[in-house]
């Protein structure tokens, strides 16, 4: 296990190294001058220019510049946003929790809806319920999220007026940001309208979570169903059945344990898709997360922000991937040997 972990960590290090080299080279690959791309300062007078060139080692070799770049990253000096002239790290700290919040709720929904439905579909795959669930899953899987999200807004927000059309919280509620996670912030705040604010935040969450959860949920249903059917054919299930265990006992003790193992890995694989979909969801539902921030930055040609945003999201995806991989191995001794 230790060797395995070391191997994984080494891989992680290599990937991050490659990523940082790529991010660094973006400073040169983007239009405009590297000094501006790295610092994000909109106006550079001669003295700052000189100072920064020195600090960034822009007069030295690429290797020296790269090392200076890594040092700045490490010390949290990510440069300024060209658009707002605010430190990028501060801006990311404001928008990233919103994305994580939305994504984690969608993931939760995909577990709590996807896994039971997948099992249900596997119990009698040719029955009415099994067929219906499969049909729903394939439909949900094929829905383009931008269309599905807009449809939800059209029907439930504009048409029926049940839910707000976008945002995280009604603008009249004033909740001081502490963690950046809205529900937690509301619970931590000491405003008189906490209950109402919580309700309002949940109402704001529902449609975007539904839109974002559709894809991972349907993937989860299909995956769990197939895994269950697969496991059901294994000889140890037959043995368990032959031992005289009831159907439920077989399902819990032998079926689920083995079928859910690949699901852990699936989370890691789905995570990058989920982040991509979250970006689209954020744009559709005006959700102030990192996806919308990054897309706005692209519109504004805000190169330092694009660079930082890409880096954060890639590191996030790679880390989650790696973690689920390790978790999967931890629970599945067979995989360690490979």
């Amino acid at each position: 296990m230790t060797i395995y972990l070391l191997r994984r960590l080494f891989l992680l290090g290599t990937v991050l190294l490659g990523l940082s080299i790529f991010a660094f080279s973006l400073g040169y690959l983007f239009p405009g001058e590297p000094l501006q791309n790295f610092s994000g300062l909109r106006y550079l007078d001669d003295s700052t220019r000189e100072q920064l060139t020195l600090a960034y080692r822009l007069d030295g070799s690429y290797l020296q510049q790269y090392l200076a770049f890594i040092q700045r990253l490490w010390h949290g000096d990510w440069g300024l946003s060209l658009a707002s002239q605010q430190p990028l790290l501060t801006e990311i700290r404001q928008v990233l929790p919103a994305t994580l919040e939305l994504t984690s709720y969608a993931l939760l929904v995909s577990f709590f809806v996807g896994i039971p439905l997948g099992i249900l579909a596997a119990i009698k795959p040719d029955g009415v319920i099994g067929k219906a669930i499969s049909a729903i899953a394939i439909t949900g899987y094929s829905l383009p999220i931008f269309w599905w999200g807009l449809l939800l807004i059209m029907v439930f927000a504009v048409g029926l007026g049940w839910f707000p059309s976008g945002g995280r919280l009604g603008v009249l509620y004033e909740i001081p940001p502490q963690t950046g996670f809205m529900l937690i912030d509301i619970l931590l705040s000491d405003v008189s309208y906490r209950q109402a604010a919580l309700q309002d935040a949940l109402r704001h969450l529902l449609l975007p979570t539904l839109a974002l959860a559709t894809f991972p949920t349907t993937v989860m249903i299909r995956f769990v169903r197939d895994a269950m059917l697969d496991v059901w054919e294994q000889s140890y299930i037959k043995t368990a059945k032959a031992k005289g265990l009831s159907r439920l006992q077989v399902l819990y003790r032998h079926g689920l344990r083995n079928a859910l193992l690949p699901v852990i890995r699936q989370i890691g694989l789905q995570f990058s898709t989920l982040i991509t979909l979250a970006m689209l969801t954020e744009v559709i539902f005006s959700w102030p997360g990192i996806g919308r921030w990054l897309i706005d930055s692209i519109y504004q040609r805000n190169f330092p922000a694009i660079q930082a945003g890409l880096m954060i999201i890639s590191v996030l995806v790679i880390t989650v991937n790696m973690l689920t991989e390790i978790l999967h191995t931890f629970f599945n001794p067979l995989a360690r040997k490979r």
Partner: protein
Amino acid sequence: MKYLSCLSLLCVALLGGCSRDQGPLREGGLVYCAEGSPEHFNPQRVTSGTTIDIISQQLYDRLLDIDPQSGDLLPALASSWQRSADGRTYEFQLRPDVQFHQTHYFTPSRPLQAADVVFTFNRILQPDHPFHAVGGAVYPYFQSVDWTALVTEVRATGPLTVQFQLSRPDSSFLSNLATDFAAILSAEYAGQLLASGRPAQIDSLPVGTGPFFFREYQKDVLVRFYRHANYWRGEAAMAQLVFDIVPNNARRMAKLLTHECDIIAYPRLAELALITERPDVRVQESTSMNVGFWAFNTRKAPFDNVKVRQALSLAINQRAILQAVYFNQATAARSVLPPTSWAFNPQIPLHEYNPQRARELLAEAGYGNGFNMNIWAMPVQRLYNPNALKMAELLQADLAQIGVNASIVSYEWNAFRRRLSQGEHDSVLIGWAADNADPDNFFRPLLSCAAADSGSNRALWCDPVFDRMINQALLTSDQQQRRSYYLAAQQYLHNELPLVAMAHSQRIQALNSQVEGVSINPYGGIALFQARRVQP
């Protein structure tokens, strides 16, 4: 399956718990959905209508106000004023006991005094003033009316009296003081900021005397104001005012329909039909003091030839443009001045569409075979021209009828304006929104020789005869006499045609039927002081 039923239970709980109109804060709060973020919070330093709408009437007061109906001047922070016999000295008596905002960053120790007014205007006037250079020493409105050349001194002659010395009589002076840009700031606050070494904060964390005070600003998300409890006109009905920043037109409309916004700025004209049928929202409109026009670069051939300009004007179908671009939500323009102005000249005929005559005129001017030209179409949507590209396409088709081959040019907005001031265009579709009720505001910034140099004269037209007319109009304060000068100026423009005025568009806003006390001010930003919510 039980999870699904849990989920649906949750839905029911959410829906049942609070039906959409009865949030506890909704009673006392108003949400205005704006089309963009404010640049900062000082009206002196902006011209953008978006910023003015958000900050000016809400946070600040002016010495004078303009009556939105009649365009007359009303007393505001100045309770009365006297003009000296030679027209070069104005003295204002200030209202006593006007309180500044108490916020989390400033606590006023005294009410409004003459020193505050002196501070406000000296910041603009005196290059060595400690606050003059804050924000880059840019005061666009005051620079456009040549304020520093006009006002020689502002001084306090008593604790509540202020005197303005002018270099020459100027009948538009009082109107300028009543614009949204002439907001009165707090000298005490400025002094504290200077002492603590943070002068720039004066424009980002504002203090004024207006009906609401500043609470927070999240860039591109929202601006939050609270009610000013000691407002001198009395308390506003709304305890909280939030400007939700929603740049997307369709989304703003959707938020109005879902009641997330109480008022939305600039609904798209094409969507108005959609909302007029709904009982929960209504539409307000008013002809604004603006004009959309097509200006010719009169420094380039063949546009220096008046016959060519007349021919081009005759060739275009203004009625079709009003229909297709403004969806008939605009008044056909005869000249640059809107019909609501007191100096409007009704003698000027409506625009004539006559391609036959246009061809004859072109032949007389020596361009019988037509020529090539370009039409610059501004890339942004403005009230005075909601869709310049579409208008350009219509013009292109009309011009083809008389043998003129027009190509359409557009750049990103900043580059567009820069290249325009350099005179790179043949003709341009752009417009102007007035900042005050004075007719001078339509003539001098648009068509004077000074404006041709500073760049706001898009026709680059400089005519000494015309300049003399509009300058003489300023020297007299007799309104009848002024009017006769402006009537003549409009007639002169009609003959010379440096630009073809297209339309005076209506300013439109859509609002929830529960909201009362809001109207459109044709002279400036929206005022939400009297907004209140009524149960239908």
